[in-house]
């Protein structure tokens, strides 16, 4: 039990020192001493609650993706039927119950229709995204498959994550973390960002831009009551625009969508000097915009962003250069935000902020300071009590405790985990609990001596008998820790991480290392009496 061959001693010390060394860069980061750049420098990350920053959880509504898909499918079906040769005539299209259904005017067209629809029903790869069923020989029902829906939500979330990443990058913030979570959520963490309002505004904007012609035949009294002429629909003016509170009727078809943009910048209108956003279309979009403006010189068009009308200027002349100007009561900041949103593309789904945690940097620094102070006082008190109670064995326990704390830091650094405020509490708890193993061992040695065993036998028995309880106790703690990690979010996970790592290091330091030291001392001093 107390025999330590040389190779084992070297091996134990090598592990201990290596892990302790890994903690050095993290410890140095609070001082002015520089760690040489040439060496690897694993460091413990500080959680947002210590470093200051914002954590935002965004959530999308999957049903929105479904509705969108249905809408796209409707358009695709109409186009396919219209462009068929000869044209396939269909009756009313219904999108009730998440299905798309329509009547064929002539049930004899069914085979041709089926042929045209088949390519629309398959997604990328071999997944079948829609099922076609025929009711009463002429009613076609297209229902989305579960696989197809899931795939659509996943795709939408993937591209939403990409858009979010682009927008945040444009803000120029430091090291943001953007991760998909679960089916419909995105976590955004931005260290150092104290006021997340700007960020939230940027992410809250879908940035779906449309240009549509104003229906000038609509009667203002009808529009006011929400009645649109056939072929038109009504959009409200955006809050903050000159006509806030009013609505306008626009033609449903024949407009241009903003998804063919290649650039957007904030600039100023040369005549009025108001902030505006200048956009550039790609070649195809530019051609369509030129066509639209040529056909409608002198007519009003509406610039619609996320279902709200920004402004309704008129085409004074054909716009051929592929770039356009969006005006609409902007400030420099809001024009800039819109430009960023347009550049990074529209979000395929709306994202709502469902959780936000922001900590100012001052508060975080205060927390670190008071947390470390408390830890220092606690450690000194524990050390004092251990030495007063167990003498030499208390000193061993203390040394093990110090090494334990440094090793936890080292392992956290290597694993690149995050230290949070509850994590500091985890450290304190570990400091208190880590000596438990030594208390168990030392009390056991006391007992064995009292029963009259010789020194060496008492120490050996002490370690052996106590190890069983130490082992069981740590396994159960490990179970609690793992569950804490699995269910916990953010800072709480930080607590669990420290507890779990602390379990391993405390067993190693309090049992293995102290036994190594005690064995060395016994061999050298050959004491006939133990003061424990």
């Amino acid at each position: 039990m107390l025999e330590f061959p040389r190779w084992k001693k070297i091996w134990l010390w090598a592990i201990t020192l290596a892990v302790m060394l890994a903690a050095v860069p993290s410890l140095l980061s609070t001082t002015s001493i520089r760690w040489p750049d040439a060496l690897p420098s694993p460091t413990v990350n500080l959680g947002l609650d210590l470093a200051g920053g914002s954590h935002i959880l965004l959530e999308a509504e999957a049903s929105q993706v479904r509705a969108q898909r249905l809408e796209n499918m409707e358009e695709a079906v109409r186009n396919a039927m219209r462009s068929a040769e000869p044209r396939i005539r269909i009756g009313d299209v219904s999108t009730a119950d998440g299905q798309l259904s329509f009547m064929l005017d002539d049930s004899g067209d069914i085979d041709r229709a089926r042929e045209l629809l088949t390519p629309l029903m398959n997604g990328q790869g071999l997944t079948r995204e829609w099922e076609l069923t025929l009711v009463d020989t002429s009613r076609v029902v297209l229902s989305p498959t579960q696989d197809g829906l899931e795939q659509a939500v996943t795709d939408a979330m993937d591209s939403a994550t990409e858009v979010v990443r682009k927008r945040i990058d444009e803000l120029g913030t430091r090291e943001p973390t953007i991760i998909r979570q679960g089916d419909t959520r995105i976590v955004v963490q931005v260290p150092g960002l104290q006021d997340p309002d700007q960020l939230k505004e940027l992410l809250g904007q879908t940035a779906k831009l449309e240009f549509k012609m104003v229906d000038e035949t609509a009667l203002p009294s009808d529009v006011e009551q929400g009645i649109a002429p056939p072929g038109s629909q009504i959009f409200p003016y955006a809050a903050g625009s000159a006509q806030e509170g009013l609505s306008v009727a626009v033609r449903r078809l024949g407009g241009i969508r903003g998804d063919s943009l290649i650039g957007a910048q904030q600039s100023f209108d040369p005549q009025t000097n108001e902030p505006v956003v200048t956009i550039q279309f790609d070649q195809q979009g530019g051609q369509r915009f030129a066509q639209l403006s040529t056909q409608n010189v002198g007519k009003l068009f509406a610039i619609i962003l996320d279902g709200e009308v920004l402004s309704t200027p008129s085409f004074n002349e054909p716009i051929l250069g592929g770039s356009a100007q969006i005006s609409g009561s902007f400030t420099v900041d809001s024009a800039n935000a819109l430009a960023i949103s347009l550049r990074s593309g529209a979000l395929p789904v709306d994202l709502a902020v469902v959780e936000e945690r922001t900590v100012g940097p001052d508060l975080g620094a205060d927390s670190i300071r008071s947390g470390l102070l408390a830890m220092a006082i606690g450690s000194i008190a524990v050390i004092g009590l251990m030495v007063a109670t167990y003498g030499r064995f208390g000193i061993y326990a203390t040394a093990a405790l110090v090494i334990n704390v440094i090793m936890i830091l080292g392992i956290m650094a290597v694993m690149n985990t995050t230290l949070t405020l509850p994590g500091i509490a985890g450290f304190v708890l570990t400091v208190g609990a880590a000596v438990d193993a030594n208390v168990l061992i030392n009390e056991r040695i006391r007992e064995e001596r009292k029963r009259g065993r010789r020194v060496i036998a008492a120490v050996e028995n002490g370690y052996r008998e106590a190890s069983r309880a130490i082992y069981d106790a740590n396994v159960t703690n490990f179970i609690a820790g793992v569950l804490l990690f699995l269910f916990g979010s953010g800072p709480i996970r930080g607590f669990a991480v420290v507890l779990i790592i602390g379990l391993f290091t405390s067993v190693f330091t309090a049992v293995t290392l102290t036994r190594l030291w005690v064995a060395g001392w016994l061999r050298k001093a050959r004491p006939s009496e133990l003061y424990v």
Partner: protein
Amino acid sequence: MKLLKLVPDDTNIKFLKWRVPFYVVSLLLMAASWALVFTNGLNYGVDFAGGQEIRATFVGEETAPVPEVRQTLTAIEGVGDPVVQRFGEPNEISIRVKLPPEAEGDKEFADRLTREITAALRDDHPQVRIDGVDSVSGKVSGEFRETALYALLAAMIAISIYIWVRFEWQFGVGAMFALVHDVSLTLGMFALFQLEFSLQIIAAILAIIGYSLNDTIVVYDRIRENLKKFRKMPIPELLDLSVNETLARTVMTSLTLLIALLPLLLFGPASLFGLVAAITLGIFVGTYSSVYMAAPILIWLGVDSDSFVPQESEADVQDRKARGQA
């Protein structure tokens, strides 16, 4: 050198003599705790109730204008009855607004409220500094409640199963009982004093479960050892002996934990107070339950000296009979 001894050698305290009254008191306390949880309810913090907690410092002012802030806030729709308190320094406050039940389904409600509250604060006091915001929507808080409950149940069950495997079923039941006791009393305490119940408190309870089990296991380990050693000793006496033998360790460990936690309670960050307070409380409850709940229950569950003797399997019996006949 004279070493400190907190517990004298060879204590012989008759812990188990009072086991029935202690059990009655504990069972009553557990019942009272649950009654409190169901009548008073837990004072759910932002994590579990939804809503927001905003911490702010009034820079350049001596003290924070608490009544004025409360006045400003009640004017905002959906704020209901906000809790505005001093927090740390005299010019620092914490504002807690719970989500009204009807906003549970509205994902953006909490976020909208946060914007309005911070805007209102800044309008009245341009010097105000927002130190921290926690805003949780109804849906997310509902999920937190659910997962917290599952985590607690899973921890208790998993740990009990482990102890059952390592010891005997009676010990697993005993440990489970001690855990239910600890968790109940902690919850009862939170319901009684209406302390804020948040995710941090769940973390604290799981830490208590782990710690309380340390104590229980040390006692159980000694009981197991003594059962093998003193085959003839009556069980109550044996349990007393085991508790007494491990008493020095129990006291010492609880003490080191307390003196490590005390500075954190006194000087630590204010936002950790709930977590640390819950753990501190749990150390007392956990130590008590290991001695007075986990050990005596073994008597009633029928642990005896044969519990750890390897059972003869059916095959062994057959084998022996066969040999006897031969």
